């Protein structure tokens, strides 16, 4: 396990605001980079920690009992949640970046973004301390929507268990996904030296324009269309910018001759096939100046077994069908509630429920 040594962190540049030397020194040890330089990852409390039992108390006994329970147990650390391995992997990338670029502000900044009551915050902070996570920025909004704060922190990726909040964030142009715990007991052994992120293509990195064609006109039309428009870049999807920010950090390693040892690796895991519809995807990425380390074209085969081999710290897909398949085989998955895929389940159009009054 990588130890984070506070004394190895880069000093924050002296921007003239620090008049008190002692305060400055203390601040330097803990201060993350300003939002505009960092790649900000906001995680909710339930994605960072396993709060399933506590959630049950909230749902069955109400908010007061839930808060009281959390306060009563605040010295008992929470167990890791689905985003925990991802956060540890981000921390490892930061260590490697600081080794190569001691003064750089281009790092991951992990923010705890929860709408928990502030009193629950004490237990959350105690748990962060217990695992020695580098999370210094916290918003405990006491019930208010986090979207405004996500924007204020220039968030590059937001992970939550609450799909409503995720949908709201995506609507505001923030990359976001709903996380799920893996269901299986067999935990995939994840790398602790390399952050591995897997993305679906359509409606995640790219817009859902092609998926619309599949749903409305079928696969054959889709193949023809993609061949015809092979050279026309697809429009971007909600997670394109996040991939871009990963690429930016990767290039910092390449610049120091660390390509073979890069602690970030990205994967495209798509149902498209290499022969027919795959080319357009690769050409689109190229037109955006983005690289993806491995592109895996499944031609409709299930994603679960392949993901089991890849062992990503997180896998993003817009279709619950694929998320379920991944989860069953132990992959940590995150649903991107975007595009036409939300209206379908296993290829069938979902009946729209009557709007809530």
């Amino acid at each position, binding site marked *: 396990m990588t130890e984070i040594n506070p004394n190895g962190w880069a000093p924050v540049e002296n921007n003239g605001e620090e008049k008190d030397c002692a305060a400055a020194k*203390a*601040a330097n040890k803990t201060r993350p980079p300003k939002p505009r330089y960092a790649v900000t990852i906001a995680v909710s409390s339930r994605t960072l920690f396993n709060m399933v039992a506590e959630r049950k108390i909230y749902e069955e006994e109400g908010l007061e009992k839930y*808060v009281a329970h959390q306060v009563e147990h605040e010295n008992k650390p929470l167990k890791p949640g689905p985003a925990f391995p991802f956060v540890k992997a981000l921390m490892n990338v930061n260590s490697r970046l600081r080794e190569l670029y001691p003064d750089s502000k281009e790092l991951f900044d992990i923010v705890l973004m929860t709408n928990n*009551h502030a009193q629950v*915050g004490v237990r959350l902070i105690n748990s962060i301390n217990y695992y020695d996570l580098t999370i*210094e920025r916290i918003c405990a909004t*006491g019930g208010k929507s986090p979207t405004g704060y996500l924007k*204020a*922190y220039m968030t590059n990726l937001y992970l939550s268990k609450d799909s409503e909040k995720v949908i709201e964030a995506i609507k505001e142009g923030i990359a976001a996904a709903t996380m799920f715990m893996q269901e299986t007991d067999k935990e995939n052994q994840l790398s602790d030296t390399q952050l591995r992120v897997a993305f679906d293509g359509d409606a995640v990195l790219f817009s859902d324009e092609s998926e619309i064609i599949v749903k409305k006109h079928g696969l054959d039309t889709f193949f023809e269309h993609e061949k015809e428009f092979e050279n026309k870049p697809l429009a971007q999807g909600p997670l394109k910018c996040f991939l871009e920010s990963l690429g930016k950090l990767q290039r910092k390693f390449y610049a120091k001759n660390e390509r073979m040892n890069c602690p970030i690796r990205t994967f495209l895991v798509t149902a498209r096939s290499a022969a027919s519809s795959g080319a357009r995807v690769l050409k689109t990425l190229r037109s955006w100046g983005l690289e993806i380390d491995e592109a895996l074209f499944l031609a409709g085969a299930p994603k679960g077994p392949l993901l089991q081999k890849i062992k990503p710290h997180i896998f993003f897909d817009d279709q619950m069908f694929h998320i379920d398949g991944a989860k069953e085989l132990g992959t940590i998955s995150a649903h991107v509630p975007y595009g036409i895929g939300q209206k379908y389940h296993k290829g069938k159009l979902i009946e729209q429920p009557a709007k809530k009054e």
Partner: protein
Amino acid sequence: MVSTIQNTDVKQKDAARAAVVAVTSRAVFDCGVGGGDDVCGVGVAFPLLQALQRVNERLLEENPAESLLFDVVLITTSSQQQQQSSRISSSTRHYGLEVSRFCFSSEEDFIESLLTNGVQLFLTTDRNEATQASQSGVLSALLDQQIASCPPEQLRVMFCGDAIVQPDTGPTPASRQVAQSFSTQLGEMRQRFGVFNSPLSIVLVTSRGGRESCSGALQKLRSRGVSVDEAYCLAGAPQGPIVSLLRPHFLLSEGFRNLEE
């Protein structure tokens, strides 16, 4: 010459138990240059007064015999305002504001007014007035122009773990004392309501330190009987974007610098 007048439209509060808050009339009303008995326009602190009122209403709903209430005093701090006294009282009645007393004082004697009226919190839009009051041992907070758009349904009080609004004078032991006792009263009021749907929300912001300072501040406030509702640990991030979302009615920073020690 100070004249203190009771507002007979409003039930007087129990002096021993109430939290006496004085707000300058200039913050509450925009009296312009009109004369006679013209009703004044509303000022930036108008929603703040409505929010204080709302807290009182909800406190009395919970317990009709409640004596821990906000006791609002409207105070003039210049001879110019002093001369508008009848417009100020008639405007107060016109808007149905729950103001128990008026202190019509001038620049020279408003401090004396604050002291003789047992004011525990003085709110003004004028930095000099706030400084003077602080130096005389009265807890003060500077009201921002932005509070005009704060919600009147919920009183939002922000505690700064480190000073966002730099106090012009460092906290003396006496000023720390008044700050603590006021915040304890606030904490007690907050306890009358449940976690959800409270008319009073206590917000903590720590701007420079990391999570330890936030946790420390939460626990220290808790030990004083103040249960914070919302907490934001900025750890050096720019304050503007976050604080503008929080929309507090006022900030209490004096005497709380030790929250982050």
